[in-house]
C-alpha cells in the first residue's frame, strides 16, 4: 500500500527526482543503479522501433528510387524534387509537428507521427505516378521530422538522468540498424523479385511491423515531466505512478507539488519560437543548432569520396544501364555498399553509446569534430597522391571521419538538442535545431557541385576542415554539459544562461 506520509522535502520533488531515485529496500540497502520498469522498457523499445523503421524506409527509398525512376519515367530533374519532397516533409515535421508536442503532449505526437508514417508507407506501396510518390515521400518526411525531437523527448523525460545518454543514443543507433536491416531486406527482395515492382515489395515488408509499433504506442503513459510542467499535477502524478510500477513497489508514493504553468510565463520557460533567440535560450539554441548544421556540411563533403570507396571495396557499377538486369545488379551493389558504410556508422555510435554518460557530451562532440577535421585533412592529401597511396589515404580519411562523426557530432548534436532546453520549450528547441541542420544540408547539397567545380576538391575540403574546427570552438564556447544532469535542472540553468557542470 502506498505510503501516504511524506516529508516536506518530498513535496518539492520533481518527476525527474522520482525517476532518478534508486530504490532502497526495507532493510535500507540502496540499489547501485536505477532498474528500468516495464513501462520504461516499453517506451524505449517503441521509440527504438520507430527509429529502426525510419532507417529502414530511408534506406529503402534510396534503393527503390532508380527502380521507381525507370517505372514512372522520372527525369534527373524530377529526382531532385524527390529529395526535396522528403526534406520539405522533414522541415515541416520537425518545426511544426515536433513543436506541437509542447502543446498536445509527447505521447500524442509520438502516436500521431507513427500513424502518419504507417499511412504514407502503405500508400507508397501503391503509388502509380510521380505526383503520388512525391506526396507519399513528403508524408514520410513529416513523420521523420516529427520524430527527431519527439522520440528523444519521450525517452529522456521517462528514464533516469544517469543513463539518459546511452538510452537516447541507443535508440538513435537503431536508425543505423534499420538501414542495415533495409540493406538485407532490399537485397533479398531484389533476388526474389528481380523486376520493376521490387520497390513496392520493399516498402510492403515494413507496413505490418510499423502498424504494430503504432498500436503499441497507444499503451504508453504520457510524459509526467511534460504534464507537470503544464501545471497538470494530478495527471502528472498518475502518469509517474504508471511509469514507475515495480515489484516490490518503489517509489512507494509519488507526491508532486503544483507548479506554475508554462503559459503563465514563470518558472520553467515556455513561449514562442522567437523566445528561442532571446537572451534566455540563445545559448542553448546556438549549441543545439550550429554544431549540427556544421556537422551536416562535412557529411556531404566526405560524400565526394563515397563512389571511390564503394567501387574499390565492392566493385564498379555497370558503365551504362543497358537492361533491367543491369539496373537490378547496380541496386544490389548499392545495397551492399550502403551496408558496408552503415556498419562503420554503427561502430561509431556504439562507442558513443558506451562513452556518452562517462566522458560527457561536450567532450565527445569536441573530440569528434577535431577527429573529423583530421579525417578530412588525410582525405585531402589524396588529391596529390596516386595509385595505392591515393586509395589508402581516401580509405583512412573516410573511415576516421565516419567513426569520429558518429562518436562525436552526429550522435552528440542529436542528444544535446533534446537536452539543453527546458521541458516546456523542448519540442520547439529540438525541432528548430533539427530543421536548421536540414536547411544547411539542402543548401550544401545544391552548393557543393558548384563549389567543387569552381574551387576544386582540395580547397573544398580545406573549407570543411575550417567548418569542423569551428564546430569544436562553438561547442566549447557555448557549452552546456548535460551528462547525468536532471532535466529540470538543465531547464533552470539554461534559463540563467550559465553552463551546467557535469553531475554524473
Amino acid at each position, binding site marked *: 500500500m502506498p505510503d501516504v506520509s511524506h516529508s516536506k522535502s518530498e513535496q518539492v520533488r520533481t518527476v525527474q527526482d522520482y525517476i532518478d531515485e534508486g530504490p532502497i529496500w526495507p532493510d535500507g540497502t540502496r540499489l547501485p543503479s536505477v532498474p528500468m520498469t516495464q513501462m520504461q522498457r516499453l517506451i524505449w523499445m517503441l521509440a527504438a522501433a520507430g527509429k529502426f523503421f525510419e532507417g529502414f524506409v530511408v534506406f529503402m527509398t534510396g534503393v527503390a528510387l532508380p527502380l521507381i525512376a525507370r517505372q514512372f519515367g522520372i527525369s534527373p530533374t524530377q529526382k531532385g524534387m524527390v529529395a526535396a519532397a522528403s526534406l520539405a516533409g522533414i522541415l515541416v515535421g520537425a518545426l511544426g509537428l515536433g513543436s506541437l508536442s509542447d502543446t498536445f503532449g509527447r505521447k500524442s505526437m509520438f502516436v500521431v507521427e507513427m500513424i502518419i508514417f504507417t499511412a504514407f508507407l502503405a500508400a507508397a506501396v501503391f503509388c502509380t505516378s510521380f505526383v503520388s510518390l512525391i506526396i507519399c515521400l513528403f508524408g514520410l518526411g513529416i513523420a521523420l521530422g516529427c520524430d527527431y525531437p519527439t522520440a528523444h523527448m519521450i525517452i529522456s523525460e521517462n528514464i533516469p538522468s544517469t543513463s539518459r545518454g546511452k538510452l537516447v543514443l541507443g535508440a538513435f543507433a537503431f536508425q543505423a540498424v534499420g538501414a542495415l536491416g533495409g540493406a538485407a531486406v532490399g537485397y533479398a527482395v531484389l533476388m526474389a523479385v528481380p523486376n*520493376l515492382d521490387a520497390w513496392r515489395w520493399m516498402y510492403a515488408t515494413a507496413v505490418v511491423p510499423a502498424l504494430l509499433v503504432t498500436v503499441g504506442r497507444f499503451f504508453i503513459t504520457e510524459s509526467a515531466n511534460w504534464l507537470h510542467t503544464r501545471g497538470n499535477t494530478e495527471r502528472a502524478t498518475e502518469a509517474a505512478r504508471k511509469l514507475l510500477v515495480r515489484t516490490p513497489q518503489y517509489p512507494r508514493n509519488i507526491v508532486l507539488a503544483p507548479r506554475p504553468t508554462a503559459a503563465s510565463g514563470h518558472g520553467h520557460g515556455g513561449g514562442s519560437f522567437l523566445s528561442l533567440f532571446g537572451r534566455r535560450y540563445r545559448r542553448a539554441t546556438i549549441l543545439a543548432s550550429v554544431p549540427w548544421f556544421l556537422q551536416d556540411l562535412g557529411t556531404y563533403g566526405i560524400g565526394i569520396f563515397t563512389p571511390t570507396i564503394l567501387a574499390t571495396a565492392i566493385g564498379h557499377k555497370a*558503365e*551504362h544501364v543497358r*537492361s533491367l538486369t543491369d539496373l537490378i545488379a547496380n541496386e544490389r551493389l548499392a545495397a551492399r555498399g550502403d551496408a558496408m558504410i552503415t556498419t562503420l556508422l554503427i561502430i561509431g555510435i556504439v562507442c558513443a553509446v558506451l562513452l556518452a554518460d562517462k566522458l560527457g557530451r561536450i567532450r565527445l562532440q569536441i573530440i569528434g569534430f577535431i577527429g573529423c577535421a583530421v579525417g578530412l585533412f588525410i582525405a585531402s592529401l589524396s588529391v596529390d597522391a596516386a595509385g595505392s597511396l591515393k586509395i589508402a589515404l581516401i580509405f583512412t580519411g573516410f573511415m576516421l571521419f565516419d567513426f569520429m562523426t558518429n562518436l562525436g557530432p552526429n550522435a552528440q548534436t542529436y542528444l544535446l538538442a533534446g537536452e539543453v532546453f527546458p521541458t516546456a520549450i523542448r519540442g520547439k528547441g529540438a525541432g528548430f535545431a533539427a530543421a536548421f541542420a536540414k536547411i544547411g544540408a539542402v543548401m550544401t547539397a545544391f552548393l557543393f557541385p558548384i563549389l567543387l567545380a569552381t574551387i576544386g576538391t582540395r580547397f573544398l575540403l580545406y573549407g570543411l576542415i575550417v567548418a569542423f574546427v569551428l564546430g569544436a570552438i562553438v561547442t566549447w564556447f557555448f557549452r552546456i554539459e548535460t551528462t547525468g544532469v536532471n532535466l529540470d535542472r538543465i531547464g533552470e540553468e539554461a534559463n540563467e544562461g550559465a553552463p551546467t557542470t557535469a553531475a554524473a
Partner: protein
Amino acid sequence: MSRHLTPRIRWAGYVVVAAAAFATAQSAPLTIAESGSTLIYPVFQKWVEAYAKSDPALRITVAATGSGAGIAQAVAGHVQIGTSDAYMSDNQAMASPDILNIPLAISAQTVDANIPELRGGTLKLSGPVLADIYSGKIRSWDAAPIAEINRGVSLPHHAIVPVRRAEGAGDTFIFTQYLTFSTESPDGGTQSWGDTVGYSTTVKWPPVSGALTATGNEGMVQTIAHTPYALGYVGASFEDEASQAGLITAMLRNQAGNFLLPTPATVSNAASELTPRTPADERLTLVLAPGANSYPLINYEYAVVSDKQPNAQSAGAISNFLLWCISPQGGNASSFLDPVHFIPLPTSIRARSEIQIARIQ
C-alpha cells in the same frame, strides 16, 4: 418418296461436308502479318521471298510502318509479328507479359551528312557534339566543337539542318540513346541530353530553327540528299542508298574515344563486348559499347511476338519462320545480311532466341 432422308443418307451427307471443310482448311494458305521497322524492312522482304520457297502454303505480308507502330500493332494483336530496332520498355513489357522480344540479327546505324564541299572526304562527330547540334547549341558546320575534332578539314560556314524522324522509330531510340549515354560523363557539356530529352522511339526534340522531319529510313535518306548541309541518322540497311546520294557517313566517337566507321569488324567487336550481358528476355541495348574498336551505334533487330497464338498451326508457322530467320543456313546467312550491313547473331544469343521462340504456343 419420303421427304425425309434416311439416317444412313443423312450421316453420309455429314461426312461429305466435314471432308470438304477439312480439305478447304488444308488448302487455304495461312497468312501471317508483319509490320514495323523500316530498317529491317529490306532484309525482311528478302527473307519472306526466300522462305516462301520452303513453305509455299504460308503467306507473310510485310509493312514498313516504323518500330513504334510495329510494337503497338503486335501488342494489340493486329499483326502476328511486329519488328523493331528497339526493345519494348520495362513498362510495356510489364503491361504485356505475353509479348516476347526476340533478336533476329544485329544491325548498325550511321550518321550521314550532305556537305557538298566534303563529298568523298571524312567527317568526325561525337555524341556530345550531336547532342548540341540537335539541341540548337551548335548551329554551323564550322563551329569550334566540330572543328576541334576535325583538325585539317576545311568545314563550310553553313547552318546545319538537323533531320529527325517523324514517326515512332527504333532509329530514333538508338540515336537518342547514344546522345544520352555519351553525355552522361562530365565532359558532356553543361546539361546532359538525358536530363533534358532522354531516349525513346519518339522524343520531344528541342526546337531548332530550320530542322526537318522525315518518315522512314528511305524518307530520311531522300531528305538529307535533297537538303544541302543536312544531317541525319540512317539505318545501316540504307547505307548504299546514302552513299549513292553522295552523303558522307560520319566516323563516330566510341566509348574509348576513337572515331570509327561501321564496318563488319567494328560492328562485330561492339557486339562481342556486350552480347554476353544479354538477359533471358533479351531486352538489352548495345549502344556505345566498351572497347577500343567498337562502333558505337549498333542494336538488336527484334521480332515482337505474342507467346499465345490463337491456334497451334499459327504458332507452329511463326516459330518455324523465326527459327529459319535466325539460322546461319537461313535468314542469318551472309547472302542476306551482308548487303544490308547486318551481322548474324552470335551462337549464344541464337540459343537464347530459340528458347524464347519455343515459348510461342
